[in-house]
């Protein structure tokens, strides 16, 4: 009949007993689902937060950088490690393609995470506990986490963010006792973060060794570590160890030429990354990072030291 007009009187036909029964059950279920969500806000312990702050990519990147500078207690595979105090604000920056910092948290303590992005959308996905949240540039999402189990957790990115998306992985370890740090290779971390160097150090002349240290800091804080490895592996960008002084095959204006990696070339690569593309990495062009002239000097010193 569905292809023809319905039979006379269709509008006034009584609804059958079983159909009526089913509709009532379905409606009760649908209303119950709504009530369940509301009640979970009252009695449940997992609720996405409603707190968001407007921010900008540059503002949040600065916030994150100064947070890490102030609280860093060590490095883990090029990623700064922070051990926040319970009930404090934790700033997590996502960018192509890394999460920073790595965290050491205490079981059953609350931490106020501020999560935002420096570039694209990212997906904040804690594994294996499998909790997933969306990260936007320009929005500071505040989520108060209380880890309930000790162990090692990874933060993976589950929102597509470009060709290196699969390399974007961070680390959170949750401990109960101080000895647990050993399980994760964190026993040699500093107990307290270093006091900040006094500001306005620009006037002072640094020694070469200090320059290298500052360069290493830029490397971890600004995110160079996401693509440039120092262990010789080059998936997304040339590795930095042994880079200085090497001859690189690059493409300039469509032509392949060989250049020597020296101070001028590194400077040019940082300021105008699209000018010369290293052969083999054309698909992952480097973005422009807002580094100061001093930062660049320090980075060069650091690269030089990685022979």
């Amino acid at each position, binding site marked *: 009949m569905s292809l023809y007009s319905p039979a006379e009187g269709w509008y006034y036909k009584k609804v059958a007993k079983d159909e009526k029964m089913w509709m009532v059950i379905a409606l009760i279920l649908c209303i119950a689902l709504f009530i369940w969500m509301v009640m979970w806000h009252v009695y449940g312990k997992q609720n996405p937060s409603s707190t968001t702050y407007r921010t900008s990519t540059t503002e949040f990147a600065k916030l994150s950088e100064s947070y890490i500078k102030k609280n860093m207690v060590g490095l883990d595979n090029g990623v700064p490690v922070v051990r926040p105090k319970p009930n404090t604000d934790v700033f997590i920056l996502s960018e192509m393609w890394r999460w920073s910092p790595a965290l050491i948290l205490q079981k059953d303590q609350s931490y106020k995470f501020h999560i935002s992005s420096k570039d694209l959308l990212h997906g904040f*996905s804690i594994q294996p506990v499998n909790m997933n*949240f969306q990260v936007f540039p320009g929005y500071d999402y505040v989520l108060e986490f209380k880890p309930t189990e000790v162990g090692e957790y990874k933060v993976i990115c589950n929102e597509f963010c470009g060709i290196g998306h699969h390399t974007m992985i961070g680390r959170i370890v949750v401990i109960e006792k101080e000895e647990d740090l050993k399980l994760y290779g964190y026993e040699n971390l500093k107990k307290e973060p270093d006091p900040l160097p006094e500001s306005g150090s620009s006037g002072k002349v640094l020694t070469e060794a200090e320059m290298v240290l500052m360069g290493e800091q830029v490397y971890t804080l600004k995110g160079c570590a996401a693509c440039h490895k120092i262990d010789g592996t080059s998936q997304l960008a040339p590795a930095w160890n042994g880079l200085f002084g090497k001859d690189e095959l690059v493409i300039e204006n469509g032509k392949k030429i060989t250049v020597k990696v020296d101070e001028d070339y590194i400077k040019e690569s940082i300021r105008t990354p699209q000018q010369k593309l290293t052969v083999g990495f054309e698909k992952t062009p480097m973005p422009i990072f807002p580094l100061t002239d001093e930062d660049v000097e320090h980075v060069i010193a650091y690269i030089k030291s990685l022979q």
Partner: protein
Amino acid sequence: MFRTCDITGFKVDLQSEKLIRANAVFAVISLLLAVTAAILLVFTRYQPVHLLGAEWYYRLTTFHGLNALIFWIIFFEIAGLYFGSTVILNTRFCAPKWGWIAFALMVGGLVMSNTIILMGKADVMLTSYTPLKAHPLYYLGIILFAVGALIAVILFFGNLMIARREKAYGDTMPLVAYGLMTAAIIAVITLATGAIIYIPTFLWSLGLIDNIDPAMYKLIWWGLGHSSQQINVAAMVSIWYMVSFLSVGGTSINERVSRSAFVLYILFICLASAHHLLTDPGVSSAWKVWNTSYAMYLAVLASMIHAFAVPSSFEVAQRRWGYNKGLFQWLSKAPWGNPAFAAIILAIIGFGFIGGTTGVIFGMEQTNIIVHNTIAIPGHFKGTVVIGTTLTFMGITYYLIPLIFRRKIVGFKWAQWQPWLFFIGIALLSISMIVLGQLGVPRRHWDSTFSGGPFTHNFNPAVDFFWALMMLGGSIAFIATIIWILVVVISVFFGPKVNGPQDMQLTISPLAPQPTKEHKGYEAPGTLILTLIFLLVFIALFFLNWKWLAATWNVN
């Protein structure tokens, strides 16, 4: 110009018939493109093979999404709308010239967007969340396609007006046309939302607009992305009623109920994007809870009403044909050899048990935390849009080949097996994706060993089994789709001509006999049992998910 169908007795406008054919052909082409990409993607995610490089993996993910979810579905729906508004209503096509203009725009859009993607200028995924930027022509292609589709929908309303004015159908519009009309109304809302987001994004990609707020983009984009799925649901359910009629002479046991359910789709789907933002910043919990449910999930209710109304239309008709023994004789004596019937029953089962259950549970604010952006999400919509919509469209095509293309189905034995094979394939694929997602595996991710990252992560060892199962399911579904495409193409272009009812391989049933006396009590007890089983499965999955959620860290 009309011909009168010697099989069904309907008047068929020849202009309309040509348009239906053209749109259907492009639907099949799009599906072929989509599944070719799909099989390559499956073998890339299956880590032991890891077929494609990262670049082509993301490129073909974009390509697959656009061709499967937009081009295949919408081309087929336009063919369906033309069929529903002219053939079923015995009326002529209002403006065939505009039909061809719409068709040309849609084909142009398809070619443009696909070319840009394959050139590597739009590796942005179907969602193309800003600030990811594609080449302007990618957006323009989609806009052209959408404009074409919008014109086609307007033509559908034009046809309805003619049919109404010329009293081509009795007093009341037939249920199938009514369902398709709701699909068309939702299509207008959806395409308008699409214009609101794609036009500024196009201008932004040209550099004429500075900034598209990413959260605003995501909110409005899903007004297109999800509402369009409601077009599919409305179109699909209409076809379910149609096949019930064609195969066993069944009809909704209460048309008022069925029609009201269609209206619920229109009224309660308007902000369907909300459940895509459940774990996003920017909107409050109150906003999320309210806008996903409107306090009572009435769009879900609509589907649950159809979940009873459609099978009961089969059951009641079968009982009137005399298959009255026990609870389920109506089902065991059903025309399973009719591939359209088999496809529709399997689509209903898959849509309800896989797509529907997970859809409702994943769409609740808190449980979304444990599945958001995991591979469980595509797993869910493989259950709705692939088993549900695609298998339904495949099934009805077995009727369209003899009735519209006027050809016999070549390889009818293959056609009879095809829906089963496709169902098994996609069910395996979909269920394994859902389990993988529950174990934390992300969607749209080239390498789940995280090679090149500072750390690595090993998922629960159970994933290996489900990856293999997903690969197996994907391969079976791919083969089933290729069988379908071959059957359709060979039949349409080389099949023997249909010269009358004697050439019909699929039954066309007369209307089931009317009962002699008014029925009291249960009209469809078998269906009631089936829906109650569905309810139990849903409740089990519901508590499983919430139990899992309760075991995670605390967050608020």
